[in-house]
Structures are given as C-alpha cells and as structure tokens.
C-alpha cells in the first residue's frame, strides 16, 4: 500500500523530529510573514494593542482607586448601642464574642461611666446630669468591620449578626458615603469585566478576519501544498503562529500604550496628591498582571486564528 510505505519508512523518533522541524519552520516563517507585510501587520498589532489597553486601563484605574480608598476603609464604623440593663462585665463578654466574628477587624467598648464622663465634658450639661441619680446612657461598642466585609450583602450580614446579639439594642453604620463609594466601585468592577469580554470578542474577530485574508491571499500556495500531500495541520500551522505573533505583539503594544499614558498622568496626579498631603502615586501593572495581559493577547490571537483556519482552510481544495 502506498500510504503504508511512507508510514513504515519513518521511525517514530524521525517523525517527531520532522514534526518539531515543521513547527520551527512555521514559527520562523510566520515571523518573516509579519515582517514582509510590515505596515498591515503593525496596524493589526496596534488595533489589538488598543483593544487590550482599554480594559487593562480600566482595571488599572480601579486598582489605583482602591488604593486611594483603602485608607478610608478603616474609618467605616458601626456604632452599636447596648441595652441599658447590660453591665460592664456583660458588655466585655459581648466584646470577645464580637471579635471572634471573621468579618470584624476590631471593636472598642465605651462603658456607661466613660460615656457619661464624655458626655459631661462635651455637652456642658454636667450640673444637670449630676442631679440624676442614675446614669441614663447605655454602653456603646464601636465596631470596625473588615474591608472585604463591606461589599454588597456582606455588610448586611455584619449588621444581622450584631442584631442577633441579645445585648444590642441598635446598630448602625457611620459614614454611609464611603459605603456608597465602595458600591460604585463594585459596579465599575463588574462593568470592566463585561467590557473586557466584549473587547476580547472583538479581538477574536479582528484576528480571525486578518487570518482569513491571509488564507485567501495564499490560496494558490494552499492548493499546491495540498496536492503535494500536505495535511491540514501542516497547512494551518503557519497561520496559527501568525495569530500567535499578532496576539503577543498586541499584548506588548497595549503595555506600551498603558505605560505611556501613566507616564503622561504621573505629574498632574502627584501634584493633586500633594494638595491632599497624600503619598499616593499611580501604579502600573505588576509583573504578574503584565504577564496575564500578554497571555490574554496570545490566547486571543491563537484562538481567533484557529477559528478562522477551521472555517476557511478546509474550503480550499485543489481543483
């Protein structure tokens, strides 16, 4: 049999070597193709770069915003007023129970006597209060929730937990606006995820279309190689590598765009931070985040070209 003859001639190790060689050839060849069509390649790279830079830029904005607001997290407190009949010993016992809750970072007990002393000092009604034979003020516990407990839903849980304690009469958040800010950040975060998904889909289409055009440009070549016995995987290899190069170069381009933008924003931001007497400075992507972005680019490039190759390569047959 003809087919058998060619198969038995090659040992597995030789086949593997040929396979490896073919990959190396496609790898270099596709890079050469990038260079040969430099202008259109750079345009494609730039489009992918800008597309990736948009969600990455939003992400960076959020990260920096969170860095700014992280300092405010500590100022979010819950004031819990205890029932008037709770004495100091019972209040202390409640404190230890509260601190066992994983959502609570710290708690401060203001005993009835302390509250009274404070009130006397601040209100100016000290004489009036002295007339009272009983302390009318309840004990108060100031509770500092953990920052990650301030998300939608979880903040409710903390309050519910507090209300489930029999000693507590009323519990309420202070500084609602910080909580609202976190709420807004939460929404933006979600928006960035959705937006990234759309952009990712867009990059797939861009790469897919570029590869489609490349496939039809090489129509003659594909027909000839098929006639001389090239398998589909042999023919698709250089196109997949081309997608790989587009994705990688697009990822690098988006990193360059982001760094450039940050560089341009650095001065005005630090001037503003100075006005607030803040040490804040803009952060770029960390090494890990940069790698993730590059990996996303490579994945989108490869996947986009793979889809295109599946759709279009098989329709080209010698005739």
């Amino acid at each position, binding site marked *: *049999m*003809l*087919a058998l*003859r*060619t*198969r038995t001639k*090659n040992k597995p190790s030789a*086949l593997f*070597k*040929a*396979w490896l*060689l*073919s990959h190396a*050839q496609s790898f270099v060849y596709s890079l050469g193709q990038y260079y040969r069509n430099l202008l259109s390649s750079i345009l494609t790279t730039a489009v992918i770069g800008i597309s990736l830079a948009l969600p990455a830029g939003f992400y960076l904005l959020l990260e920096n915003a969170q860095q700014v607001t992280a300092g405010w997290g500590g100022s979010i407190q819950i004031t819990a007023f205890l029932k008037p009949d709770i004495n100091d010993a019972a209040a202390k016992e409640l404190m230890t129970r509260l601190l066992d809750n994983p959502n609570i970072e710290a708690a401060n007990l203001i005993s009835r006597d302390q509250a009274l002393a404070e009130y006397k000092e601040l209100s100016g009604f000290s004489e009036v209060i002295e007339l009272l034979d009983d302390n009318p003020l309840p004990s108060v516990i100031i509770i500092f929730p953990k920052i990650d407990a301030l998300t939608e839903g979880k903040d409710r849980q903390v309050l519910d937990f507090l209300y489930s304690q029999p000693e507590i009469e009323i519990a309420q958040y202070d500084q609602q606006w910080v909580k609202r800010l976190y709420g807004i950040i939460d929404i933006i975060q979600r928006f960035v995820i959705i937006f990234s998904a759309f952009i990712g889909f867009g990059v797939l289409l861009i790469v897919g279309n570029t590869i489609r055009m490349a496939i039809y440009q090489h129509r*003659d*070549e594909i*027909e*000839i*190689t*098929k*006639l*001389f*016995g*090239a*398998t*589909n995987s*042999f023919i698709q290899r250089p196109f997949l590598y081309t997608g790989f190069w587009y994705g990688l170069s697009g990822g690098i381009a988006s990193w360059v765009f982001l760094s450039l933008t940050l560089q341009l924003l650095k001065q005005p931001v630090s001037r503003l931070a100075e006005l607030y007497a803040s040490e804040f400075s803009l952060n770029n992507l960390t090494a890990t985040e940069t790698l993730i972005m590059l990996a996303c680019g490579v994945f989108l490039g490869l996947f986009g070209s793979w889809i295109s190759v599946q759709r279009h390569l098989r329709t080209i*047959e*010698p*005739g």
Partner: protein
Amino acid sequence: MIRFNNVHMQYQTGQLALKNINMHIEQGAMAFIAGRSGAGKSSLLKLIALIERHNRGQIIINGQNLERVRNSRIPYYRRNIGFVFQDHRLLNDRTIFDNVALPLIIAGHGHTEIRKRVSAALDKVGLLNKANASPMTLSGGEQQRVGIARAVVHRPLLLLADEPTGNLDPALSLDTMKLFEQFNQVGVTVLIASHDMDMIKKMRKRIITLRDGRIPTHFGNTSVNQNEE
C-alpha cells in the same frame, strides 16, 4: 499501476464527465491521454489524484482501491504522486530552490536531505545555476522545467501532467517531453494529458483517446494494452 474498471464520474452540477472508462496502465509505462478540450482528460487525472471522486466502477492505483482511501488519508496517498501543470503553478514569493523543495518539506525531510535532492532534481532539468532566482525571472520553458523538478524531487511512483506543453512552442514542447521520457526510463510511471496530437505521435508511446467522456473503440483503443512498447 493504474486500473479503471467501468468508471463513471459525474460532477455535482450533474454534468457527466466520464462514462464507462476501462483502462490499464502498467507500472513503469508512459502513456498519453489525448482528446479535445472537454473530452474528460482533466477529469480522469483528477480522479487519480483524488481531487474528485468517481461515482461508479473501480479505480485501483498501485494496488490501492481509491474508494477505500479516507479523506484524512488523502495527503499521504498524494505523496506518491508528482504533478505538473500547464500554468506551472510555481510560488512566486520564494526562490526556485524553495519551490522544488516543497514536496520534501511537506513530507518532513531533513535539511541536508532536502539540499541534496533538490540540487539533484534541478541539475537534472538543467537549472541548478538558477536555484536562488525567483520563478518570475525565468522563461516559460524554464518555469515548466522547475515544475517538473518539483514533481519528481520526492521520487513519486507516478507522474501526472495536465497539458504540460500547452503554453510552449513545438521545439520546447518536444524538449519537455524528452525530459518526461528520461524520468520514465528510471522507473516512474508517467501519464500525460495533452491535446497536441502532432507532438504525442512523435513520442511513439501508448495513446488513450477520450471523446465526450468515453474511450471509443475506434481511434485505436480496441485493446486496453495496445500501443505499449
């Protein structure tokens, strides 16, 4: 080597291309398929190359029944065939060396093996000195010789040529045919489709004449093995 038994072939458009074809070409033979344009010469070659599939009958190439060759195995089947085209179909974005090397690269041969075999093939067609030139710098006859070098470089068992001299003047045509004859003499089975009867007759090889998709019994086709030298 090539055996057709009652082969029918119909294109998807409904056009009947070949009707009841019976023929047998021995291993190591050289034969011509003659006939006017549209007589079915190209269709017959396409069936052998598995570019098209026949609808009825049986085709056996080198002991292999083509009906049993699955689509996924077609690439491996084709690696034992060399193709020559009327319009050469060279790839103009690469050198002549790279054009000829194509079948060897596809089959996964090593670098030194490729260099050796391509040089030998180009030497055989007399174009070794043009190895690094672009196909576009060559004349039509030279381009066709590059096409022939590419078709034999992987030492196929069977060489198929579709109107290989269609674009060449009579003198060049004869040279090209002599080249095919040389490859035939080292054992390659050669099947050439051509409408150029004057040139075919000069070659004094077996001629299979097609007319309207049939092999008529007159035209000297009475015996399937007739005209064999």
